C-alpha cells in the first residue's frame, strides 16, 4: 500500500487513537504511518456490536416472558456466556444457570448479588429492579 492511499475514514477509534499502518513512501521505502480508520473495518466492527445488541434484546424478551432473570441481560451486555460469567463470579456453571432463572435469582443472598453486580459492572439496586423497556 502506498502512503497516500492509507485510508483516513473516521470511525471506531475517533477521538481516542490512530492505528499504525505500514505503507510505502514516495521512495518505495516502508514507513510506519497513522490511519484514522478504514470503512470496511467500521462495517465489520459495527456488525459485531449488532450481534451483541441482538443478544441483549433476546435476553430482554426472555426476562419479559418470565423465563429469565435480569442477570441474563447484563451477561449479554458484558459479552459473556455462562462459562465466562461463572469464571468471573467464581461460582460453578450449574449454579450460575440456576441464577439465570427467576426462581434461582430470588434466592440469591446479598453478598452473592453484590458479587454479580460487581462483575457485571452494575449495582445491586439496578440488578434487582431491572425491567426491560419494550
Amino acid at each position, binding site marked *: *500500500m502506498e502512503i497516500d492511499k492509507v485510508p483516513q475514514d473516521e470511525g471506531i477509534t475517533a477521538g481516542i487513537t*490512530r*492505528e499504525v499502518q*505500514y505503507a510505502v513512501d514516495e521512495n518505495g521505502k516502508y514507513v510506519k504511518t497513522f490511519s484514522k480508520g478504514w470503512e470496511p*473495518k467500521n*462495517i*465489520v466492527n459495527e456488525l*459485531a456490536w449488532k450481534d451483541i445488541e441482538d443478544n441483549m434484546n433476546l435476553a430482554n424478551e426472555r426476562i419479559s416472558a418470565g423465563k429469565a432473570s435480569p442477570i441474563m441481560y447484563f451477561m449479554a451486555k458484558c459479552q459473556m456466556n455462562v462459562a465466562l460469567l461463572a469464571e468471573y463470579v467464581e461460582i460453578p456453571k450449574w449454579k450460575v444457570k440456576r441464577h439465570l432463572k427467576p426462581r434461582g435469582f430470588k434466592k440469591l443472598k446479598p453478598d452473592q448479588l453484590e458479587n454479580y453486580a460487581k462483575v457485571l459492572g452494575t449495582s445491586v439496586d439496578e440488578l434487582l429492579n431491572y425491567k426491560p423497556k419494550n
Partner: protein
Amino acid sequence: MKLDFEHIPAGHCENGVISSLLKYHGLNLSEAMIFGIGSGYFFAYMPFVKVNGIPLASFRPVPGMIFARAAKRLGIKMKKQSFRKQPKRAMDELDKVLEKKLPVGVQAGVFHLSYFPPAYRFHFNAHNLTVYGKEGDTYFISDPVMEYPTTLTYEELKKVRFAKGPLSPNGKMYYPIEIPKEIDLKSAIHKGIKQTADWMLTIPVPLFGVKGIRYLSKRLRKWPEKLGPKKAAAYLAQMVRMLEEIGTGGAGFRFIYAAFLQEVAEIMQDQRYFELSKDMTKIGDKWRTFSSLAAKTCKGRSSDPDGYNTVANLMLEIADDEEKFFIELKKLIS
C-alpha cells in the same frame, strides 16, 4: 518514579512490546525485524477452535510464539513469571522489578482496558503492554497500539492482568535479563525466514499455510447456503476483523513482513529481498481488496452466493501468490 522509556507506537502489540523493551536496553531492532525473526507470518484455519462461536482463521501463530522464537534466535534471555490466582503477589512483584529500573512487559485482557477504544473492547486476553513506572496509585503504561503513552490505576491494572476466559493472562509478566553483546543477526534472520517458508508451504495438514487458505476458500463458498445469511455474514466479518483490527499493521501482517524484507535487503546487502518485498506488498494489497469486498458482502447480509464466490476466488489467487512468493524466498536462504 517514571523510567526514561520511549513509547513507540507499533502495528502489533507483542512485537511492539519486545521491540521497545530491547530498545530500552540498548538493542535497536524494529517491530518488523522481531516479527520476521520470530516467524510471525502465518495462516491457520481451525474450525475446531471457536471465538464467539465462529471458527478461527488466524494470520499469525499462537500468542507468545513470535516472541519466544525471536528471543531464542537472538540469544536473549527473558525472565517470565505467572501468578495463578495471586493478584496481590503479581502486583508486588511488578513493583519490585520497576524499582530496579526495569520496564516490564505484561499480558492483559482487553475487555476492562479503560483507555482502549470502546468499540474494540471484547474479551480478548492476549494483549500486551509495557509498564514503565509508578507514582502513588498510578502506573505509566506504554501500549504499542495506542498513539500516545497512557496510565492505569492499581485496580485497573490488576483487573486486566487477571482477566478471565480463554488465554487468561494469570498475571503474566516478562522482561529481558540477558542480552548478548554480539548478535548474529544474519543467522537469526535466516532461521526466521526458513521457518516461515516451511510453515507456509510444507505442513502436511490442509488447515495451515497456503493449503489452509485454499481449504477455507472452499468452505467459505458454502457459508451462505449452509449457515444462512446472518451467520454467514458473521463468519466473514470475523475474517476481516482478524485481518485488519488493531494489531496487524494492515492486511493480516502482510505489510509488516514486506517492511521486514526491506530491512533484510539492507542487512544482507542483497537487492533480491527488496524485489520480493514488492511482491509481498502486492499480496497485502490483495488481502485489502478481500477485506473491502467481504465487508460489502457482510453489510448487506445478503445470501447472494456471488459475493462469497468473488472473495473465495480472490483467496485462491492469493494462495497461489503466497506459494510462489515463499518458494522464491526460500531459494535466497538455501
